[in-house]
């Protein structure tokens, strides 16, 4: 029990009443469950005849409050999944601090890391690929309990599994089935149940809706939101789908080439974003209404996200930015407060929407 972490559940002294939706971009929040400071992750990649260092995440800082859903958005290669993997210790961080209940996640090892894992769970994009094809659903859901709560009797474990199965909207008859017998939506419900069954506090959802069919997406989106509220979970919600992020998240962090471009409350971000990259992402998101879609026609952002091996000097976005000036090539813009956003752009004041 010497984990330095209070047990999950009911009466937690650090619990605070800061509800997600009212939480806009405030300065450092005293009741953050997770505080990430200057996180950098570097991969060694083969390049030409030798190796090169690829900085996938570069000095990223953010907080996540209890009961809050924070969206991580950006194009592929922006570093959103790498941040999540570094926090879960699936890839090593190069530098930075990730303080979770006052413990630095990035410094844990051995038994303490193992004990910490029960508080941090992951929901994957591909629900079928993330379930063991040779275990039945009951065993898949029971396994986290066997590992983290070995004191439970078989009967107690079954009770927990049944309760969790019901909580994600499935019946007990599913427990004897195998992953390949489930539909995509059912499999994702099991993926969610498996992540939640040991009552973690922080859940990373890596594109949890992207692989699902349109008519299933809304079911799972609603389910995640309901569970998040009921259980006061803190979610890191990684997605490239801005509309899904807007539906699911309280605050949004916009990434480009491993750097934070903007952090803002969801309503602020979609009404009055302050970064030209955020604006471009919002304008590129399709609107399922031909009148609205065709009324806003604007030239799409040109080019594609460059390789992090050759990140531009100054502001990394400047090579695609319609507002770039000389200063952008010389000076890296710092994250600063403009209106209700924290934004890293020299010309943020001029971005109006």
């Amino acid at each position, binding site marked *: 029990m010497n984990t330095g972490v209070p047990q999950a559940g009911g009466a937690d002294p650090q619990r605070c009443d800061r509800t997600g939706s009212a939480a806009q971009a405030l300065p450092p929040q005293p009741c953050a469950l997770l505080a990430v400071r200057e996180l950098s992750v570097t991969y060694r990649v083969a390049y030409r005849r030798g190796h090169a260092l690829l900085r996938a995440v570069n000095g990223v800082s953010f907080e996540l409050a209890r009961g809050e859903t924070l969206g991580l958005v950006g194009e592929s290669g922006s570093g959103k999944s790498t941040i999540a993997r570094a926090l879960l210790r699936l890839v090593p961080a190069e530098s930075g601090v990730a303080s979770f209940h006052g413990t630095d996640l990035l410094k844990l090892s051995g038994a303490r890391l193992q004990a910490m894992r029960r508080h941090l769970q992951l929901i994957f994009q591909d629900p079928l690929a993330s379930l063991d094809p040779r275990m039945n659903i009951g065993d898949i859901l029971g396994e986290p309990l066997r590992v983290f709560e070995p004191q439970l009797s078989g009967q107690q474990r079954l009770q927990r599994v049944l309760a969790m199965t019901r909580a994600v909207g499935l019946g007990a008859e599913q427990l004897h089935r195998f992953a390949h017998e489930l539909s995509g939506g059912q499999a994702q419900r099991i993926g969610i149940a498996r992540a939640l069954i040991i009552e973690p506090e922080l859940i990373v959802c890596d594109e949890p809706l992207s692989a699902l069919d*349109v*008519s299933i*997406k*809304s079911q799972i989106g*609603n389910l995640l939101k309901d569970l998040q509220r009921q259980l006061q979970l803190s979610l890191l919600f990684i997605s490239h789908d801005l*509309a899904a992020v*807007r539906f699911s998240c309280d605050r949004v962090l916009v990434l480009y080439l491993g750097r934070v471009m903007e952090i803002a409350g969801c309503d602020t971000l979609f009404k009055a974003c302050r970064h030209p990259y955020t604006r471009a992402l919002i304008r590129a*998101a399709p*609107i399922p209404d031909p009148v609205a879609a065709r009324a806003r026609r604007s030239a799409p952002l040109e080019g*594609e996200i460059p390789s992090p091996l050759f990140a531009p000097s100054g502001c990394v976005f400047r090579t695609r930015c319609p507002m770039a000036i000389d200063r952008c090539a010389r000076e890296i813009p710092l994250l600063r407060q403009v209106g209700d956003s924290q934004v890293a752009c020299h010309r943020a004041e001029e971005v109006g929407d």
Partner: protein
Amino acid sequence: MTAGPPLRIRGLSVRYPSDHGQIEAVRDIDLDVAAGEFLGIVGESGSGKTQLLLSILGLSAPRAELCGSIRYREQELLDLGSAALNQVRGNRISMVFQDPMTALNPYLRVGRQITEVLRVHRDATARAAERRAIEMLESVHIPEGPRRMRQYPHELSGGMRQRVMIAMALIAEPEILLADEPSTALDVTVQAQILSLFQELRARTGTAIVLVTHDLGVIAEVADRVAVMYAGRIVEQAPVHGLFAHPRHPYTEALQQSIPRIDAPRPTHLASIGGAPPNPAALPAGCAFAPRCIYRLPICEAVTPPLIETTAGHWKACHHDGALGKLRGEAA
């Protein structure tokens, strides 16, 4: 001389055997593609939309059994042998696939793959083909054509590869371009670029485009006319504005209501339809959507509703005749 739509599909069904029994992937489809139009086909996975496109080009699985008719101008495509079909595909009707990395040959330089189309269909000399390929790259907004021609697919970014696919598909100036989820694997910003490229090329060349997608948002951005597919059938077909303003099929309504939007008030709950799309090897009798439909009538489980024209150009296959509008998300 040839009035009417260049492509006419009538009563098309595509069946093939699978481990789980006979699968009818496409069921009794009637569809026209008019000259120069932008037709969107929307459906979920397993709705048969890809099988429909593949059957037009004779690319269905070898064991597939096709019946009905696919007429391109005077020719019945289903009767053509592969030599005659090769005169049509890549030439008069061409295709862009979802994943350009698997559709391009990784061993051949980009230039070789683009010029091959002209050498096969136009008997062009190497030099003429190369000149035309560089022009084509320019028209899909790939700069430095001569250098790109010497590169291999893996040296290009995802968006660039999809542009190469589009250049290949359009270089023979086809009358119809089929595109299967051409922007799904791309980032949103690149998707927007590719969609605007399709519109630009259509306006310039007059090529009709048939775009298959699961994303109603993509349809709303670019299509003139929409066909909605469910379990192998077209359940609704209409001009894009009519379809979005007044969907007549409960499935279309459900699709439309269940996607979150970035431009409307944020709901606390999305509207959602229960259940999942049916197993194509075990389709229910009657309307395949009936088990999930909130407007279901007794007749729906017995009789498959025919696709009928309700107002000019707006077709639906549904027994329910009253108004829709019961399905809504919960407001915040």
